[in-house]
């Protein structure tokens, strides 16, 4: 583990975040967007855990606890997100998010 530094983890997190962000921005499929959000959240998790590991004694477990919270939040968010997707499907017979422009003000 000697070769691995905080930067490696940060780069991994960045790559994951960019992939997730691209996925969210580019996909029109609602489930795809949800997948992208999961990637972004997990990228943040990696950052949390990494900072926790390299962050010194003062806040040794804070990052890990936050990561657990985020996982839990992600699960809840997935449930609600999928429920919304189902509702959209039932109403519009599609999960293409461009079809939801009827929500415009």
């Amino acid at each position, binding site marked *: 583990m000697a070769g691995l530094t905080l930067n490696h983890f940060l780069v991994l997190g960045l790559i994951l975040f960019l992939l997730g*962000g691209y996925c*969210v*921005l580019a996909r*029109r499929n609602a489930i795809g*967007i949800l997948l992208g959000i999961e990637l972004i959240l997990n990228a943040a998790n990696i950052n949390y855990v990494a900072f926790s590991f390299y962050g010194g004694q003062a806040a040794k477990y804070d990052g890990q606890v936050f990561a657990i919270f985020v996982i839990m939040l992600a699960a809840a968010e997935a449930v609600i997100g999928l429920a919304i997707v189902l509702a959209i499907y039932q109403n519009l017979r599609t999960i293409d*998010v*461009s079809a*939801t*422009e*009827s*929500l*415009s*003000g």
Partner: protein
Amino acid sequence: MNNPQTVDFIRWIVVLPLLGAAFNFLLGATLQKKLGRFAVSITGCGVVIASFALAVAAFLRMLELVPSQRFLLDDLWRWFDIGGLRLDIAFWLDPLSIVMTLIVTGVGGLIHLYSTGYMHEDPSYWRFFAWLNLFTFAMLTLVLADNLWLMFVGWEGVGLCSFALIGFWYTDQVNTSAGNKAFIFNRVGDWAFVVALYSLFSGLSKVGHPTLIIREIARYAPLLGTQHAYAGISVATFVTLLLFLGATGKSAQIPLFAWLPDAMAGPTPVSALIHAATMVTAGVYMIARLNFLFSMAPLTMLVVATIGAVTALFAATIGITQNDIKRVLAYSTISQLGYMFVGVGVGAYTAGVFHLMTHAFFKACLFLGSGSVIHALGGEQDMRRMGGLWHKLPVTFWTFLVATLAICGIPPFAGFMSKDEIIWSAFDTGHPWIWSLLWIAAGLTAFYMFRQVYMTFFGEFRGTDEQAHHLHEAPPSMSAVLVVLGLLSFAGGAVMLPRFIATFSPFEVFLAPVFDSPQTLAVTAQTHHQGLEGYFAALSLLLVAAGWLLADLTYRRKILSADRMSRFLAGVPYTLSFHKYYVDELYDYAVVRPYMMATRAAGWFDLHIIDGLVNLAAATTVLGSWLSGLFDNYVVDGLVNLAADATLAAGGRLRRLQTGSINGYLYGLLAAVMVILLVRAVLHT
């Protein structure tokens, strides 16, 4: 007198007629329809006759006691107990009230029997008997009450029944307004009666005996002494004057007599029972009942005697010109009641009560006789359309004649014994001018009574042919009653013979314990002219004979023309008398019209001032609301609308941002994050 014997059957004398009334009020209409009038008659008459039987039993029981102990008490229950005033529902029989009870139930029972014939065709037969029973109940309550409040209950009750029975044929406006008149006149007297009770109670409370029980008042009245009520008038005088005003209302004396002639609008048995034999004598009874109190007030006694004498003469002068057969009798009743008041007013209580009793006999007989005539003529009451009826209605004629002789005071008929006793007492107690009024009234009585007899029963029949065809003697139920009352009118006076004929007066002896209080004895002892009685009786008879002769010459032999006499001899007095001295008109102008004007003024005030104020308040409210509405509409709503419009306008602009495109939002989000990062980067360097 301190320890009256307690018995428990007196209540039934009073309650039985009440039960009869309740029965007929509740079931009478149905019974009459289903079973016929007979069922109504049985209860209606039965209860009164049963009451009479009980009264006779009580009378016999009383005779067994020693004279000074002849007091029976029937105490039902404690009525109320307020501020030291403890009164019971209790009935109290003493020689005076038993005499009155026998009259009420006896004569009343006869009149009930008579009514079964007289009212036979009436559709409201049951209602008549119900009210008649209720009247009997109220009258017996008045008579037998052991305290003055209970007496007042009866006093009011008879007034109510009188009102209802005068207006019995209520479909005719005349009858109902006659009922109203009687009731309203009586209210004036009742008011005085109540105030008298308050004053008496207050006076007795001040000497430490707060009571209204009659026998206790008798015991403690002397303690009132010269206690003053107002302006130097003693309590006794004040109370008795008010009580007498109450009596003038109930007993139709000046100034409250005008209702009685109109009360003849009721069915004839009602006139006989209520407005001749019983209710109108309540005032006399009340004074005799409270003799110990009246005897303490010489001023009141003088007022009573004076009013009585003036009324006796006054009513007699009206009686001589009336043409309605019942109206003549009504004025005669007022006149005879005047005699009774003179009796009790000069301290001859026994004579007053005695005349009350004989009057009940002969006046009931006269009224029922006139009822028989009216019945035979199919409702005709004007004597100018009668005449020659004596051989068609023999029973009615003979009984009517007997009663007429009685009322005129011809010996040996009952009226002579009682009336002459009063006339003599007036002179004997030192009131010669009262004697002279009564003496003239006696002559007038003979004139108008024989005028009535001649106009009704003698000469040619002046009615229609149809009436002549239908003339018939009354049915047995009516004529039998007439015969009984005729016999009583003849012989009823035998219980108290004038002293110059014989010393036989069980009536006086029987009543003596009632009038034995020291103050009463002090009054009755004031006799001045012993031994002249016979001469005065002869003097009275002389004038009576003159009156009779004048009536005979005018109305039977027609030697004197009544018309010419009235026109030529006494034009003004005749007119005055014929129009009843314009007393009704006087009341109309003095009381009725001002009252109507006052009500109209009050009505106008209500309509214009009060309603105006109310309308003004309403208009003010409307105006205020309108202004408040304007404020609401333009200021408050304006502000609200302004806020709403501002929000709307802002929303209209902002909504453009809401494209609905999720990708758009996400790009926006990204851009915002970038901007934030950029700003931070710039700020931190």
